[in-house]
C-alpha cells in the first residue's frame, strides 16, 4: 500500500523577523516552508506508515526548483522518495492547471491514496484535491479529521453539522485531511541527515505527458486589479479601568452602534 502526499511550498507567513540575526543570511531557516496545512497530510501518512498500514510514503510537489527544499523537509520527517514537477510553463498556474499537472503526475506514480492538506496557505479555494480526483476518475474523501485504510477501502472521519461521520470509498482514492489529524512531527536530526540521501526526481511537463498548450498558459483566470484593503478606523482601547467601568463602556459602545 502506497501513499503519495502532495505538498506545496509557500513563503513563510509566520516568519516574522522578530529576531535579529547575525549577518549570514539564514537561507535554510524559513523562506521555503511546506504549506502548514500540508504538514498534517504528511503526519497522517507517516502515522499510517508507523502503524504498518502502508509500506511506502512518497511526496509530490509542483513548483519552481526551490520547491525541492520543501520536499527535502518532508523527506526529513519520513517517507522514501519525492518527485518535483517543475517547468517554466507552470509559472502562475491556477488551481485548474495545478490539478491537471498533479493528476498527470499521480497517474504515473499510481498511489493507493493521493493525500493532500485541506487548503493552501494563500487563500485559494481548496479545490485541488477534488479537481485532481475528478481528472483521475477516482473517488474523493475530503476534509478528513482522520484517515483509515482497511479491506480495500479508505475511510475518513469528517465533521457533520452536529457530530461526525465516517465516509468510505474503494481504493484508490484522492483524500484531504484537516489539522485535526494531530500535530505534525518535527524532523529529527537523523531524519534530516537521511533525507539528503533519499531519491528526489525532477520531472518536466513533458515527463507527465502534458504540453504548455494543454494548460492554456497555466490559468483560466486573471487578476485585473490589486489594491490595499479599505482603511478602517483605528482601534479604540479601554485600559486601566475597573471591570464595572469596562463593562459600562462596552455597553455604551454597543448602544451607540445600535447593537443592543
Amino acid at each position, binding site marked *: 500500500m502506497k501513499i503519495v502526499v502532495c505538498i506545496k511550498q509557500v513563503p513563510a507567513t509566520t516568519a516574522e523577523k522578530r529576531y535579529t540575526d547575525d549577518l549570514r543570511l539564514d537561507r535554510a531557516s524559513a523562506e521555503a516552508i511546506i504549506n502548514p496545512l500540508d504538514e498534517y497530510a504528511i503526519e497522517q501518512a507517516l502515522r499510517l506508515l508507523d502503524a504498518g498500514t502502508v509500506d511506502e510514503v512518497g511526496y509530490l510537489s509542483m513548483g519552481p526548483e526551490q520547491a525541492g527544499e520543501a520536499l527535502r523537509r518532508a523527506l526529513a520527517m519520513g517517507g522514501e522518495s519525492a518527485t518535483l514537477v517543475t517547468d517554466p510553463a507552470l509559472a502562475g498556474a491556477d488551481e485548474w492547471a495545478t490539478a491537471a499537472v498533479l493528476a498527470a503526475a499521480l497517474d504515473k506514480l499510481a498511489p493507493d491514496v493521493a493525500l493532500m492538506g485541506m487548503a493552501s496557505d494563500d487563500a485559494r*479555494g481548496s*479545490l485541488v484535491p*477534488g479537481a*485532481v480526483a475528478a481528472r483521475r476518475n477516482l473517488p474523493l474523501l475530503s476534509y478528513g479529521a482522520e484517515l483509515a485504510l482497511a479491506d480495500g477501502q479508505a475511510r475518513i472521519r469528517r465533521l457533520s453539522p452536529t457530530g461526525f461521520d*465516517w465516509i468510505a470509498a*474503494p481504493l484508490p482514492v484522492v483524500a484531504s485531511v484537516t489539522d485535526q489529524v494531530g500535530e505534525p512531527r518535527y524532523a529529527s536530526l537523523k531524519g534530516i541527515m537521511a533525507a539528503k540521501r533519499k531519491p528526489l526526481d525532477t520531472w518536466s511537463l513533458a515527463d507527465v505527458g502534458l504540453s504548455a498548450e494543454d494548460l492554456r498558459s497555466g490559468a483560466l483566470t*486573471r487578476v485585473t486589479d490589486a489594491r490595499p484593503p479599505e482603511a478602517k478606523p483605528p*482601534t479604540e482601547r479601554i485600559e486601566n*479601568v475597573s471591570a464595572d467601568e469596562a463593562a459600562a463602556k462596552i455597553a455604551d459602545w454597543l448602544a451607540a452602534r445600535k447593537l443592543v
Partner: protein
Amino acid sequence: MSNDIFFLAEFADGAPQRSALELAAGATELAAASGGNVVALAYGPGAGDGAAGLGAHGVARAIVLRDDAAPAITAGPAAVEAVRAASPLAVLAPATPNGRDLAAALVGLADLPAFGPVRAVRVVDGIVETEQATLQGSVVTTSRPVDGAPQPSVVLVLANTFTPTEAGSGTAEVSRAEASDHPFTLATIVESHPADAAVVNLEEATVIVAGGRGIGSAEGFGQLDELAAALGGAVGASRAAADAGWVPYQLQIGQTGKVVKPALYIGLGISGAIQHRVGMQTAEHVIAVNKDPDAPIGEFADLFVVGDLFQIVPKLTAEIRRRKG
C-alpha cells in the same frame, strides 16, 4: 451558452440552508445584470421536496442533483451534467467544505475557471468579476476569466456576502438531474455520530461571542453562553479552545473552521492569530477583551479592552440585560 446564473443549494431535512438563500439572493442580483435566469442545483436530504419552494426567493428553475443523505461530492457528476447542458455564465458555490467539493468536481471534470473564496461577485458587461482578499487581508484583488475561457465561471462565495431576501411567492420549476456513474458517487457514509446536543450553525449568527485559550476550561464557556444569550447571539471558539475539547469543533472559527461574517463579533481570551483572523475579519464590528495588552487582536479590533474577562464579562452580561429591561 446562456446568461443564466446557477447556484448550489444545499438542503437539510427538506429546508434550504442559509447558504442556499444567500446565494439565491446573489444569483438574483447577478442574473439581473446578465439578463438570464436563476437556476438552483439542489442537493441534500429533502432537496426534492423543498426545491420548488426556492421560487419564493427568485429562483426560476431548480435541478435536483440528489436528495439523499449521501456525501455532497456524490452530487458532483450530476452537477457537471446539468452545467454542461446549460452552459450558464456562472455557478455560485458556498465556500463550505461541501460547496468546495462540488466546485472542485466542476472545475476538474469540465475544465472551468474557478474564483474565490470571494467577498464580492458581479457581472460587468456580461463578464463575471470577483473580489477576493488574500489570506492576510493585506491585498484585495479583482479577477476575471481569461479571454476565451470556458463558461461558466465557478465562484466560491463567503458566507454573508449576500443577504437572503424576504420570501415572496412563486414556485420554481423542478427537474431531476440525470444519474451519472463517475467514481465520485462511490463515497458513502458508513457511520454517523451526531452530537447529543444540537449545535448551532455559526454561519447564520448575527452576533458571535467567541472564546479562546484564555477561557481556560469548558466551564468557562458558561459565561460566554450567558453573554451570547443576552445579546441574542451564538458562541464560537478559536482552534485552541476546540483542540482543548472545551467546545465541539463545529464552533471553531478560522482558517480550518468556519468563516463567519456577523454584525458583531466579541472575542474573549483570543489572541488573534492569523489563522483565527481569516475566519472573522469581515465581521462588521469587532470587540476584543484580553489581559495581554500586546495581543494581536488589539491591532484589528474596533474596540479593544485590556482586562480580566472573568470579571468583565458577567458585569457586561448584567449591564446588557439591565439596558434591555
